[in-house]
């Protein structure tokens, strides 16, 4: 091992230990609370700051370092859709967040599959949606594992092999999330966001100065020499034009507010106003996303000729090329944490869904929240192990699945968002819409028709989904449901319920005070 490799690896290893320690410390004082809600949604007690940190932590994944830079390098402008949909989604979360939060709180629900089961009065629907969502989320776990793998392998100058790096990703994440759940993820997010902000802020200044004598010359050069990167459809015949950008951003902004990991963040909030404040504060975090995109474009000049998966390392090629080993290690830690935090929440959500909606539907577990929690923890390990094993043995399976992950998850929008505010949506309407949209999106994506007519395939499927859901709701079979509207539907809570809510759940207060107070996603 060379000196550089030893320095960078040591820094990385030290921070990984710190991460696990921090994640485990988070649960101090809360560990004896049994039950799923404490583990899955932090006892619904996180204040504005923790919510901000956590939600920013979830949203800023390994994609931000790798994919965003890679897209910037390969195509340029189309990658901007990430910023567009996250900003729009955060704004939409101003209404959706409090609505879902109060619904879950009122009925003691811990995850979206739980909400679906409650709304339509059918536990089996929760089970079915949980399985569907798991299939959509597993590829994300694998993406984080492989993302962290290439980062760690790169920043250790090859000293840590890919296979070991994959395993470290799995071990560190599982190491704390099984024990401390959402609260641990929020604590690790504090470290992560701090490091991400500092390292990206530094790189944003340093890279243009080091390679181009500053922003002026860098931007002038890119405008003069690479204008096809700077507007849609971007460089390289991506086929990703303006209509693709608009439909994708719109679709994803609807999807992100019901994305199970986002919802886990919503439900962790102490009160509805913490979520509203976050809707204001979170979009600021998106400014940071411009950095890897711009640096990816800077890499076009510095390390030309990267292709395929290699372009994902556009940013790290610059880092390794221009900085001393200790700085490379620190930046690698920030990127690794950007895999770990989202991975932790993905695994947590899968565990929660299974503990509550799949295994929890088994009579012996139904009335035992403590056993549901244990079941959920077992599922976390199982899901992580499955993703890890598939990463080693069948990497392409999950890569193919990941193609439909987001667009598939989008097909839940009518069932959840519309269903929760519109009583006439029937069980069979929601199910038929989901089936039609899901089938269409699979067909379009797997036959290579995404985008279709320049439009995001998931958006086309969503339109069909909605039409079917409405038609079947109006003209299809009705199922009797005697419960009153207040029991079934969700609404944005007003101010007073917030105050009530603030009073009875304080456990986080002590932990948070003096520390962090937001959560961003």
């Amino acid at each position, binding site marked *: 091992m060379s000196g550089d490799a030893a320095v960078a690896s040591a820094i990385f290893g030290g921070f990984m230990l710190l991460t696990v320690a921090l994640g485990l410390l988070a649960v101090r004082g809360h560990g004896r609370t049994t039950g799923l809600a404490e583990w899955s949604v932090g006892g619904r007690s996180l204040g504005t700051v923790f919510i901000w940190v956590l939600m920013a932590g979830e949203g800023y994944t390994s994609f931000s370092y790798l994919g965003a830079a890679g897209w910037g390098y390969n195509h340029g402008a189309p990658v*901007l859709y990430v910023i567009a949909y996250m900003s729009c989604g955060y704004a939409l979360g101003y209404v959706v967040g409090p609505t879902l939060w109060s619904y879950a709180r009122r009925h003691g629900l811990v995850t979206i599959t739980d909400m679906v089961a409650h709304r339509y009065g059918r536990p089996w629907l929760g089970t079915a949606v949980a399985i569907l969502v798991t299939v959509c989320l597993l590829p994300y776990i694998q993406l984080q594992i492989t993302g962290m793998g290439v980062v760690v392998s790169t920043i250790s100058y090859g000293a840590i092999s890919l296979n070991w790096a994959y395993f470290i990703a799995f071990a560190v994440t599982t190491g704390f999330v099984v024990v401390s759940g959402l609260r641990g993820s929020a604590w690790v997010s504090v470290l992560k966001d701090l490091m991400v902000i500092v390292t990206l802020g530094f790189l944003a200044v340093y890279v243009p100065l080091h390679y181009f004598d500053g922003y002026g010359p860098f931007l002038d050069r890119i405008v003069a020499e690479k204008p096809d990167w*700077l*507007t849609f459809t971007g460089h390289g015949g991506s086929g990703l034009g303006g209509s693709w950008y*608009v439909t994708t951003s719109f679709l994803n902004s609807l999807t992100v507010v019901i994305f199970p990991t986002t919802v886990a963040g919503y439900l962790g909030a102490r009160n509805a106003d913490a979520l509203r404040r976050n809707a204001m504060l979170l979009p600021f975090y*998106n*400014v940071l996303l*411009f950095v890897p995109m711009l640096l990816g474009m800077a890499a076009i000049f510095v390390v030309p000729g990267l292709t395929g998966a290699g372009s994902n390392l556009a940013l790290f090629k610059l880092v390794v090329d221009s900085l001393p080993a200790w700085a490379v290690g620190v930046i690698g830690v920030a990127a690794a944490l950007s895999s770990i935090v989202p991975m932790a929440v993905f695994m947590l959500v899968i565990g929660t869904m299974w503990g509550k909606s799949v295994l929890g539907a088994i009579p012996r577990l139904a009335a035992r929240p403590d056993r549901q929690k244990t079941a959920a923890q077992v599922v976390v390990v199982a899901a992580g192990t499955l993703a890890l094993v598939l990463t080693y043995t069948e990497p392409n399976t999950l890569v193919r699945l990941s193609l439909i992950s987001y667009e598939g998850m989008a097909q839940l929008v009518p069932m959840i968002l519309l269903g929760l505010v519109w009583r006439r949506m029937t069980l069979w309407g929601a199910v038929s819409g989901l089936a039609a949209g899901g089938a269409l999106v699979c067909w379009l994506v797997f036959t290579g028709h995404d985008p279709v007519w320049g439009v995001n395939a998931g958006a086309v499927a969503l339109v069909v989904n909605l039409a079917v859901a409405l038609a079947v709701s109006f003209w299809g079979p009705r199922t009797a449901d005697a419960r009153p509207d207040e029991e079934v539907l969700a609404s944005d809570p007003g*101010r007073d319920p917030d105050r009530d809510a603030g009073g009875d759940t304080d456990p986080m207060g002590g932990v948070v005070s003096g520390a962090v107070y937001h959560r961003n996603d």
Partner: protein
Amino acid sequence: MKKRPNLLWLLAPYVLYLGTLPLVDRVHPTVLGLPFLFFWLLLATLLTPAAVFLAWRGDRKRGRA
């Protein structure tokens, strides 16, 4: 929505990021050196919190948090 017209502010990011695209999908004029599309989306990113703030302030005035 009739009772909370202030929520219309939440549509502002959709207009800024998506609605205006045909007008802003261009390299020139550059602003502070930034190609126009990137400048515009950076501006939208900074204005989105302001729009959500206006929605929030409307709720505050109405006695909702």
